[in-house]
């Protein structure tokens, strides 16, 4: 049972190390190769496209309230 834990600790160490040496560190090629599997770029694109209508509504509401205050001051 103890051995199992030791083995898995080694496993985690190896996994962590592999993640670093394969996915991090200085890369020579800066541009991303867009292969079919790299859909995450599209994902980001889609996310950016979805503007928060809610925020816009609130901004609009905030703007009109400001106008009210300004008018009241006069």
């Amino acid at each position, binding site marked *: 049972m103890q051995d199992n834990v030791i083995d898995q600790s080694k496993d985690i160490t190896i996994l962590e190390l592999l993640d670093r040496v394969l996915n991090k560190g200085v890369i020579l090629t800066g541009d991303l190769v867009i292969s079919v599997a*790299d859909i995450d770029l599209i994902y980001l694109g889609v996310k950016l496209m979805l503007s928060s209508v809610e925020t816009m509504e609130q901004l609009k509401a905030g703007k009109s309230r400001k106008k009210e205050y300004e008018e009241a001051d006069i």
Partner: protein
Amino acid sequence: MSENKILFCTGPIDEITEEIGKFNSKEESKLTLGPKNADSGLAKLVLTLVELIRKLVEKQAMRRVDGGTLTEDEIERLGETLMNLELKMEELKKYFNLTDRDLNINLGPLGDLM
């Protein structure tokens, strides 16, 4: 080679090993389109994208509902549309014989899609 690098760990170590392994091994879940699996590969790709968009739209819709600026009628219509979208998605999945797991392609650094 290197000694054990774990400094502190709580929780079931075997589950943790499995989780970490999950997002390291991109091989099995990589989407490859080739002459052999063009059909099912394409369906998987398309449905994953559709499901992604559906989930994003759903998320955005919920934020609006929570925001309290919709009328009751709009809320009901939203519910109807979202529900129908989800049902349609289920139909498509069944038609192409794909499960949720199949569509959950690991997209690299962004981790699990949904």
